[in-house]
C-alpha cells in the first residue's frame, strides 16, 4: 500500500525520466511491481483474512485440524510463484540485453564521446574529440546519444544520473562503457552512489542538457579561457579536495585518459597526500 502511495506521489528522479534509457527502466520497474503486486496483495489479504477468520474464538469457522497435506494445494503453492518468476525472468533476460549499459543507442546522430574520471572527491569529464574538460559539471547536447567511458583515479565510485538512466561503477585500472541520452534540455542531478571517503556527500554534479547550438557555444567559450589539463594540473586533481565551484579546462593533453586507465599516471594519493585547502562542507 505504501508502495502504491509512493508511485502515485511520483518521485522526481528515476520515475521522471528524461531519456530513453531511464524511460525504459521505469517501464520495467513499474511492470515488475504491478506483476508482483498481483500476487503479493492477495497473499497479504488472505493471510490476514485466514488468521482472523480462524481465530480460536470464532464459532462459525470450520476447523480442520488434520488438514496438513494436499497435493492440489502443494501444486498451486509451488506453481504460482514459479509462474510469476518465469514471467519476470523473461522480463529480466530481455531487459538485461536491451538495456545493457554497454549497448549503443540507435543512432539518430553520431554519439558524443565523454570520458569520466572519478577522483577524491570530484568528477572530471573529458571531451576527447573536442579537447576540453570540465570538473563537476557535465554539459551535453540534448537528443544526442552519449558514449561515456568511466574510470576512477582513486577508490571506486558509481556514476549515476537518475533521470538519464543506468548507473555504472568507476573502477581504477578499468574502463566501463555506458550509453545514455537526454531527450530534452534540462538540468539533471548526477551523483556518486558509492561511499568514497569523507568528501563523498559533496560528490555530486549537475548534468546540463542543452540545445545543440548552446552546446557549441559552450564548447567555444570553454576553449577560449581557463587552465589547460596537463599532467601537472592532473596531479593537483589527485589531492583529496572538494572544489567549491565547477570549472573547465580549455585544453586536455591527448591520451590523458588512456594513461589514467593504464595506471601510467599514479592513482589518487589518499589522506597521506595531505588534504587540499578546500574542505568538504561537513568538515567546515
Amino acid at each position, binding site marked *: 500500500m505504501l508502495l502504491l502511495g509512493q508511485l502515485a506521489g511520483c518521485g522526481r528522479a528515476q520515475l521522471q525520466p528524461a531519456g530513453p534509457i531511464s524511460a525504459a527502466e521505469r517501464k*520495467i520497474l513499474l511492470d515488475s511491481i504491478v506483476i508482483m503486486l498481483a500476487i503479493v496483495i492477495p497473499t497479504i489479504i488472505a493471510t490476514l483474512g*485466514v488468521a482472523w477468520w480462524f481465530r480460536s474464538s470464532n464459532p462459525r469457522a470450520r476447523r480442520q485440524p488434520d488438514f496438513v497435506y494436499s497435493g492440489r494445494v502443494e501444486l498451486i503453492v509451488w506453481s504460482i510463484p514459479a509462474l510469476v518468476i518465469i514471467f519476470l525472468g523473461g522480463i529480466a533476460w530481455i531487459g538485461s*540485453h536491451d538495456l545493457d549499459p554497454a549497448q549503443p543507442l540507435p543512432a539518430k546522430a553520431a554519439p558524443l564521446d565523454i570520458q569520466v574520471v572519478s577522483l577524491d572527491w570530484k568528477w572530471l569529464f573529458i571531451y576527447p574529440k573536442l579537447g576540453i574538460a570540465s570538473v563537476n559539471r557535465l554539459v551535453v547536447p540534448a537528443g544526442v546519444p552519449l558514449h561515456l567511458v568511466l574510470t576512477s583515479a582513486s577508490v571506486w565510485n558509481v556514476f549515476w544520473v537518475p533521470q538519464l538512466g543506468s548507473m555504472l561503477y568507476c573502477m581504477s585500472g578499468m574502463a566501463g562503457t555506458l550509453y545514455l541520452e537526454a531527450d530534452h534540455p534540462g538540468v539533471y542531478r548526477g551523483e556518486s552512489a558509492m561511499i568514497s*571517503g569523507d568528501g*563523498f556527500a559533496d560528490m555530486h554534479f549537475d548534468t546540463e542538457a542543452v540545445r545543440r547550438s548552446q552546446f557549441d557555444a559552450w564548447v567555444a567559450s570553454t576553449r577560449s579561457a581557463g587552465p589547460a589539463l596537463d599532467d601537472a594540473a592532473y596531479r593537483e586533481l589527485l589531492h583529496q579536495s572538494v572544489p567549491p565551484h565547477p570549472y573547465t579546462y580549455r585544453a586536455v593533453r591527448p591520451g590523458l585518459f588512456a594513461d589514467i586507465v593504464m595506471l601510467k599516471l599514479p592513482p589518487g594519493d589518499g589522506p597521506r597526500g595531505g588534504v587540499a585547502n578546500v574542505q568538504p562542507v561537513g568538515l567546515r
Partner: protein
Amino acid sequence: MTLLGRLTWQAIPFHEPLPLFSGLGVLITVVAILAWVVAKGYVPYLWREWITSVDHKRIGVMYCILASVMLLRGFIDAIMMRTQQVMAYDAPGFLPPSHFDQVFSAHGTIMIFFVAMPFVIGLMNLVVPLQLGVRDVAFPTLNSVSFWLTAAGALLVNLSLVIGEFDRMGWLPYPPLSELRYSPGVGVDYYCWSLQISGVGTLMTGINFVTTILKLRAPGMHYTRMPMFCWTALASNLLIVAAFPVLTATLAMLLLDRYVGFHFFTDTAGGNSMMFMNLIWAWGHPEVYILALPAFGIYSEVVSTFSCKPLFGYRSMIYATMAICIISFMVWLHHFFTMGAGADVNSIFGIASMIIAVPTGVKIFNWLFTMYGGYVRFRTPMLWSIGFIVTFAIGGLTGVLLAVPPADFQLHNSLFLVAHFHNVIIGAVIFGAFAGYTYWFPKAFGFVLDERLGKWAFWLWLIGFWVAWGPGYVLGLEGMTRRLQHYDVAEWHPWLVVAEGGVVIILLGIIAQIAQIVVSVRTREQRRDVTGDPWDGRNLEWATASPPPAFNFAVLPDVTDQEPYWDMKARAREIGQLTRPEPRYEPIHMPRNSPTGFVTAFLAVVTGFALIWHIWWLVLLGLAGAYATFVVFAWRDHDEELIPAEEVARIDRANRAARSAALQHRQLRRETQRESAE
C-alpha cells in the same frame, strides 16, 4: 619501534566530545555493573553457573543477552544517523563525515554480526538439542569457546569507540578504499580483526550444530521427523560451514595487503579489487540466509503451535529450505549488477536470484495453510509471525525487483536498496528473533513474559518499522544514495523527518520490551510455567521442565511421530494418564564446566588489540597463551561429571507430578464442558 606500537594518547578522542563522553558513559556503566556484581558477591555464582558453563541452554541465553545489548548499541547508531540526516539538509549537521561514516559502518557491522547472528545462534543453542531430544550439543566446550569468541569480537568493535576509530566505509570494507593507501588508520583493522575472531567462533558453531543435528538425535527421530526449526538450523549451519571460511580468507587477504604490503586488492602492482567484491559476496549472500532460514524455522514452530495444527506441507517446507540453502550460493553477483559484467552474466544471476523467491513464496503459502482450519491464538509470538508475513511479502517483492538487472541499474546503492534489506532483516530476522524470544522465554526461565507489553512492543515495532523505512523506498526512487552525511535536495528532507519519527516509534517499542522484562521478572511468581508446556506445544522442547534440568531429559524420549510431544499428549489424553510409566532412573554423565572459552576469548581480545595497534610482543604473548590454553585443555582427565540417579529421579518426579496434575485438570475441564454442553 615502541613498546605500544601505534598506540598513543592521540587514539583517545579528547577533542571530540561526542564519542568521548558516550565512550566514558559506557565505561562507567560497565564498571558500575562490575562493581555491583563484585560487591553483591555474585562473581563465584556467575563464574560457576554462566561464564564457565558448557550447558547449551546457558550459552544460548548468553548469546541472546549479548545480542540484546548490542541491539541497543546498534540502535543508538541508527538514531544518530537518522538525526544527522534530518539536520543535515543544506547544513553540516552534528556529525562530521569522519564520525558519521564510522557510525553507519559500526551500525551495519554490529547489527549483522553481533545482533542478528548471536540472536539466531542463541535461539538455536537454546532449542535445537531440546527439540532433538538430546542432552547437549556435540562439542559442549567448543560451544562455549564459540560464544566467548563472538563476545570478544563484539568487545573489540566497542573498544574502537574510545580507543582509535572504526572503519569508515560501511559494513563491507570495499578496497581500494579499505587499503592502506586510502585508509591508513586503525578503523579497518578493528573491523577485520573483530570479524576474524567472531568469525572463527561462528564457524565452530556451524561445525558443532551440523554434527549435532546429523549425529545426535533421540531414538526414532528420522530426518522426516525433525522439527522444522531443526531443519532450518541444519541448513543455516551448513551455510555457515561453507561460507564463513570464505569470509575468513577474504579478510585475511585484506589484512595481508594492509600489514605486509601484499597486492590482492590494491589498485597497483596488479591487484584486483573486483575479486574482493566477488569473494565477499560469495560469503555475504549465503550470510543473508544463515540469518533468515532459522527465522523461517521459528515462524514455522510458532504458526503451527498457535494455530493448534501441525505444519502444513512439512515435506514441501523441507524441500523449500534446502533449495534456498543451495541456490543461495549461486546468486552473489546480484550485489554488483552495476559493475558492467555484461547482459548474459547479469540476467543469469538475476534469474537465479529470483528463483529463490519460489521456495520462499511456498513457505509463506504453507504458513497460510497451516492457519487455515486451525484455532488461531493471537499471542505475542503469533503476532510477530503475522506481522512478519505481511512485512516480508513487501520485502520479498522489492528484493525480486532488485534482482531484475535493468531495474537494479536505477535502484542499486540508493535508499531503495537500504530500505529493502532493512525490510527483510528487520521484517524477517529481527521479528523472528523476537517471536522466538517470546515463545521460548518460558522454556529458558520458567515463567511467561507479560502479554500486554509484548503486544505493545509488537505494534510499536511494526508501525515504527514502516514509518522509518517506507520513506526509504520513496527516497530511493527520488535518487537519494545511501551514506550521505549531508545533502541539498529539498524533496528528500520531509521524508527523512518522517523516517526519524519511525525511529522514535521503534524506540518506544524497545522501551516496551525492556518494561516487559522488568514487569515479568517482578511478577514471575504469578507467571510460573509449572508444566513446562505453557503454549500447548508440539515438539520435544516442551516435554521437559521449564527451565529444563542440566541433563534436559531424564530418559531420552522415543520418537514415533513427526510431532513427538503432541503425539505423547494425545495418547495421554486418551488413556487419562502419562503415557510412560516412571522409568528406571540411571546416573547421567554430563560435560564438566570449563573456563577454556573465557580464557580463549580473553587471549583473543588481547591478541586482536595488539595486532590492531602493532604491539608485536603482546601478539606473541597472546598466541603463546592460546597454545598453552590448548595444551591445558587437552591435558585434563575428568571432562565429565556424574549426576546421581537419585538426583535425576528427584528432578524428573517433580516434573511428572506437575504434568500429571495438568493432565487431570484438563481432563476434568473437558468433561465439565461436555456435560454443560449436553
